[in-house]
């Protein structure tokens, strides 16, 4: 048996060696551990996109203004105060004079201008580079048609920055508080180039600074000594755990390894809702998110050329059953594209469920639509969805619902990239989609379906709709008139039916009782400066 013994011993020795090499453990647990989503694409705020990235960015950086977690108007950030001209097109911000980067370098207005111009450059790869299109010359500069000097962002002094807008924007302040527009350190980027996001080079201007980063595992922060204010009971260390799988996140939360779980798997919701966790103010915090889950119907597809057919499909879906019986996570049934409670000038509210939302009515509508196309029944079509379990469940449920009005669809699961490519190419019949608000305004949703918008993807073109949105843009400031226009536009969008809204997302967060200062909000972001731990 010597061979066997050698083999066993050597495999054990190998295991022990690797064990040793890895240097597990090491760091002690941070004061607060947030179970966040997937690892951020980059620590460069301009290149981030997801809500999970935004939470990390909000800890590391501070924008000109910052969002109020309770939903109020934006608050002071880097800017101490700001003024807007009478016609609403010139905004000037007064920076706090004591602004510092986390390495102690002063942060002045010209560097801030440089940071915004960098955001616009295509080589930066900013996903939301069109966010600043309301600024004079920004869109042209972004496309390489105008020099940087033509962009309406200027520093009038070391502590004042001025924005010239092309047209009035419904919520310009909220826009400036978005994480892609957080400032980046010019002095570091000019020295290190794209390597500035490495842990050893990284410099930020927010309430926390980066200590260490383990790819796909954890990001550790500590208070930024150069931050403006010192909160007495502030966190001494904060860790973001990067976890892709919500089930794993829940496991970590239950095992006490994270204090906040930013997502909860669908399957756990019924149990959690029935348990004492769900009591108001206790561990499970729910909030409607400004986001809508909907289906796109491709109007260029032969099956969906007719608006009546599209509306019939929308009518046959019982959203209340979907949200209360299948999802059960606090999602709101959606008859609108814009989510309830979205504000900044609009008073659009959730439409009451149509009384005639019955299968018979849907069937009749379908027959009318098909008759006008000279068809007897709708040819079977493909419903594209991602490989996410929630998507699969919703699609299967839809299949069944539509079967009841005699419509056959085949649910096809595709990986997310293939799905998006096919959607962008218009190579689909029906596909699931979701839209999350960038800022709290109905126009952010409705402008997706303008004929010029790249987010449209349904082939639906309506001059009347475009005109309504154009008019709404001229009405910024007059909330009543503007929301009337937007409501008219949305009515048109829903009756023409290139989309079938299904539900409005809800945030589901688990927060341990000792975490204080956490406010659930519709944009699902966390203000780390407000958090503290009281055991």
């Amino acid at each position, binding site marked *: 048996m010597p*061979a066997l013994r050698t083999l066993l011993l050597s495999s054990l020795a*190998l295991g022990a060696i690797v064990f040793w*090499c890895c240097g*597990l453990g090491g760091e002690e647990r941070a004061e607060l551990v947030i179970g966040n989503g997937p690892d951020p694409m980059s620590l460069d705020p301009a290149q981030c996109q997801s809500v999970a990235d935004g939470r990390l960015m909000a800890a590391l950086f501070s924008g000109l203004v910052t969002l109020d977690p309770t939903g109020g108007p934006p608050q002071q950030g880097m800017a101490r105060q700001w003024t807007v001209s009478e016609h609403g097109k010139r905004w000037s911000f007064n920076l706090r004079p004591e602004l510092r980067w986390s390495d102690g370098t002063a942060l002045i207005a010209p560097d801030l201008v440089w940071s915004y111009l960098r955001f616009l450059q295509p080589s*930066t790869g900013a996903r939301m580079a069109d966010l600043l299109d309301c600024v004079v010359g920004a869109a042209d500069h*972004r496309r390489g048609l105008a020099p940087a000097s033509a962009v309406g962002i200027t520093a009038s002094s070391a502590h004042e920055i001025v924005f010239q807008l092309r047209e009035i924007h419904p919520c310009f302040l909220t826009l400036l508080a978005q994480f892609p527009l957080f400032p980046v350190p010019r002095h570091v980027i000019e020295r290190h180039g794209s390597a500035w996001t490495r842990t050893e080079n990284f410099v930020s201007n927010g309430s926390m600074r980066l200590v260490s980063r383990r*790819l796909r*595992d954890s990001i550790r922060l500590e208070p930024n000594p150069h931050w403006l204010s010192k909160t007495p009971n502030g966190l001494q260390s904060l860790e973001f755990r990067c976890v892709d*799988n919500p089930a*794993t996140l829940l496991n970590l939360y239950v095992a006490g390894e994270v204090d906040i779980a930013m997502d909860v798997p669908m399957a756990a919701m019924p149990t959690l809702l029935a348990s004492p966790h769900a009591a108001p103010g206790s561990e499970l915090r729910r909030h409607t998110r400004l986001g809508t889950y909907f289906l796109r119907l491709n109007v260029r597809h032969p099956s969906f050329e007719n608006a009546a057919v599209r509306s019939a499909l929308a009518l046959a879906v019982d959203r209340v059953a979907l949200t209360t019986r299948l999802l059960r996570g606090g999602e709101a049934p959606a008859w609108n594209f814009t989510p309830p409670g979205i504000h900044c000038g609009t008073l659009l509210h959730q439409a009451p469920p149509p009384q005639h939302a019955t299968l018979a009515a849907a069937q009749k509508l379908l027959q009318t639509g098909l008759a006008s196309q000279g068809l007897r029944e709708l040819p079977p079509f493909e419903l594209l969805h991602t490989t996410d379990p929630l998507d699969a469940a919703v699609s299967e449920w839809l299949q069944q619902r539509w079967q009841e009005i005699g419509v056959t669809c085949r649910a096809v699961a595709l990986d997310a990239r293939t799905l998006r490519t096919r959607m962008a190419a218009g190579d689909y019949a029906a596909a699931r989609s979701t839209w999350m608000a960038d800022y709290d305004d109905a126009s952010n949703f409705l402008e997706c379906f303008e004929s010029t918008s790249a987010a449209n993807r349904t082939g639906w073109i309506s001059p009347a709709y475009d005109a309504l949105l154009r008019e709404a843009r001229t009405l910024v400031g007059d909330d009543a008139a503007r929301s009337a226009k937007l409501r008219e536009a949305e009515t048109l969008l829903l009756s023409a039916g290139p989309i079938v809204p299904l539900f409005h997302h809800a945030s589901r967060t688990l927060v341990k009782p000792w975490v204080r200062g956490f406010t659930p909000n519709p944009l699902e972001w966390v203000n780390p400066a407000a958090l503290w731990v009281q055991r």
Partner: protein
Amino acid sequence: MQHLPAVLLFVVLPCVLLWLARNAARRTQRRAALLRRAAWLPLTVLCVHGLSFLLIHAVPGGPFDDERPLPAETRAGLEARFGLDRPMLVQWAAGVSGMARGDFGPSLAHRDYSVSEVVITALPPSLLLGALALAWTLLLGIPAGVWAACRRGKAADHAVNAAIALLLALPTFVLAGLLMIPLVFQWRLLPAAGLHEPAAVLLPSLCLGLPLAAQVARLVRSGMLEALRGEWVRTLRAAGLPERRVAAGALRLAMVSVVAFLGQAAAAVLTGSLVIEQLFAIPGLGAHFVESALNRDFTLALGVVILYTALAYVLNWTADLLLPVVDPRAEVS
């Protein structure tokens, strides 16, 4: 000049090795075979790279396709930055010559890291997981196989057989879910996920090792049964050895197939860890692998594929080298 390392690695080196193998053939068969295998490693890597490159670019969906459409200029800027706007052939050539220098370029989805950095940070957890999984495989598989073979036809044998079938049938994600409930949530023995303390690696490696342990148990069982009927064991019995020593002798024979299987198992442990890594949030190579393929992170996917290919090749090779140590007959054939 830029392509010199690539030419050296993928053309000159295999030729030299094959030439050596041809000359060595006159002396020893075995050395020639090993040299030939070494020569085929760079060629295999090159072919795998080419095939993967073709597959990656044939598949619909690009790395920058998202729910929110990317502005056209930004897309162009990103493509220029990552060199995706060049002709396919140029991209492929650049990939090959980069590979020869060990540089796979920047990762498209983890933009703060280069592919080599991603791989280097992800390899240790994967190796740790794999090594422990192999340890579990042998520690559980061999005794179970021996036990079943010694009690052939009895209850123990049937139980082991059923366990083997169950472990072969259940995918690792199910196994992980089932084991987690008692060990993590009921008795709170082990942490739920991550690699932040040494005990955290026990459960994932067990889940990874159990299906392989089942295969090893099967190999040991059938190998021992065959050996127990063989002439060698009959000789041992005739020599009056106690039954325990006879079984040990039979096991020695059965180990031949286990060693031959080890190379395959080591490769399986490495490439099969992706589900486990995802479920236990372990920042290893497997999770990167699936993620990069699904995300169309072209550069990272290619880097990981090449690494896996080379590792699997080397592991299989090592198993072949080990074989004569356990089985003297292998040298002769």
